[in-house]
């Protein structure tokens, strides 16, 4: 039997999930990468809307030209934000510290994901001047705008889950970034001829159709049009859950190696 003083530790239940979540969030506040992410996101989201999206010239009170470029911004920025999530822990050896604390792998995976998603959400909220602008200039359908924000946030989550999972495969952040970028692009363009035609040429109509249903862009555009369809939301949620689960599995399998 352990003595009273030392036995106390055995029953002590910490809050590992909250611990990792808060530490990650703190990391975003003190590392330059995160600030760079939000500044670049805000600057580009704004300038794309006005220059490429012809916000004024269209003379329509909506945020379609604003949301249209989000997938492409996320495509580069989310893998850049997420590449360090596990690769950095592996390189610096803190993974050993983290995985020997009383934390279950899925808790660590989810806590890291949520912290990053909250951070991206904050950057998204900071685009509120766009919303104020259209409301000042006209009478937009705020329901459609809300749907656009929801779709944008969900898509960022999907990219994030993909990027986090790929980050666990390597200790090199650059490799994690490139892998994540490639896989995110594949999912983004899954319905596009760029991905479809090679598959059709190989004669796999079924694979092509199945992949086309997985197109992130199609689901995002459906939501951004203002229709919060259950299937589209479920698609994003399932994508996130799948990649997070894969992440936890990889983390667990790696302990065997």
């Amino acid at each position, binding site marked *: 039997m352990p003595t009273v003083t030392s036995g106390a530790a055995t029953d002590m239940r910490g809050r590992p999930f909250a611990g990792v979540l808060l530490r990650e969030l703190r990391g975003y506040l003190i590392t330059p990468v995160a600030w760079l992410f939000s500044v670049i996101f805000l600057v580009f989201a704004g300038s794309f809307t006005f220059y490429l999206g012809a916000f004024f010239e269209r003379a329509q009170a909506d945020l379609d030209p604003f949301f249209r470029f989000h997938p492409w911004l996320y495509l580069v920025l989310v893998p850049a934000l997420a590449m360090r999530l596990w690769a950095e822990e592996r390189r610096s*050896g803190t993974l050993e510290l983290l995985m020997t604390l009383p934390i279950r792998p899925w808790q660590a995976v989810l806590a890291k994901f949520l912290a990053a998603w909250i951070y991206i959400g904050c950057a998204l909220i900071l685009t509120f001047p766009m919303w104020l602008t259209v409301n000042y200039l006209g009478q937009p359908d705020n329901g459609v705008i809300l749907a656009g924000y929801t779709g944008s946030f969900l898509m960022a989550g999907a990219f994030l889950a993909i990027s986090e999972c790929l980050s666990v495969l390597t200790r090199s952040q650059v490799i994690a970034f490139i892998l994540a970028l490639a896989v995110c692009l594949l999912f983004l363009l899954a319905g596009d001829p760029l991905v479809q035609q090679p598959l059709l040429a190989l004669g796999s109509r079924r694979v092509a159709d199945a992949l086309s249903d997985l197109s992130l862009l199609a689901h995002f555009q459906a939501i951004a049009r203002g229709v919060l369809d259950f299937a589209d939301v479920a698609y994003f949620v399932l994508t996130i859950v799948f990649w997070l689960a894969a992440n936890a599995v990889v983390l667990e399998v790696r302990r065997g190696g």
Partner: protein
Amino acid sequence: MIETEHLGKRYGRIDAVADLSLKVAPGQVLALLGPNGAGKTTTMRMIAGFLVPGSGRACVCGHDVVRDPMRARRSLGYLPEGAPSYGELSVAEFLAFAARVRGVTGIAGNRRLDEMIERLQLQPVLAQSIETLSKGYRRRVCLAQAMLHDPPALILDEPTDGLDPNQQREVHALIRGMARDRAIIVSTHALDEVRAACNRVAILAHGRLRAQGTPSELEQQSRYHRAVSFRAPASALARELLGRLPEVDAVEVDPVDGRITVFPRDGHEIFGSVVKLLEEQHVRVDELQLERGRLDDVFRSVTGDAIDTRRAA
């Protein structure tokens, strides 16, 4: 209590650890010794739950590290090799993170945190980010993390690597102080650390246990055990005569400091006869000493053949 039974881990065709059975009871501090690549870190990683054992099993305070990993980890404090920590955080933030995860909270938790900060002398750097700290400070920060929750079992992979002698002594005192009712495993390359902080020794080579026992037991296996050493300039004749004593195995002169060591034939008591002979010959001796045995000598002899077989293979 830390226990391993036939613990093993293979990487390809190489046994990193094989058939390792150890038992560390509360009150015991086990020094895990061995050349680089002997399997010390792999063993510790398996007990700590970072690596899954390839074969056999490991328990911390009765909790199997594979079947009941959370309980096993809650009972264990672990200092990984290289003392990793989150460099961008300040010392206070890092310790607060560990405390939250470990459930060291509330008034008692804060008191414990203050105690660890005090004992490891971390006050001057609390607000500093860890990546700006010296190697010694970083190691102490990670040590604080390992001991924070006052665990009944502790595993420390090279706890004093990179510390200056004063800090080393403080860490030794800390380990001895915690040893009273805890099971502790310490890996080290510094053999003087064994005497300073440990009461058990296990020597690994090629993932296998080569020797284990108390430091005194191991020292007795050394050829220096009960040898007599002294300094004596101009004693060539005496050396010659000593070599002829029936219970003396050999007489060696250290080429560096000139110290003479007389080795006994297996188990013989030679101190009396050596002193008598030196007196008869009127040899003036300095620093006459009965040797306890040397750990480095045992270490070399039990791990040495391992190196030879590797060369042959």
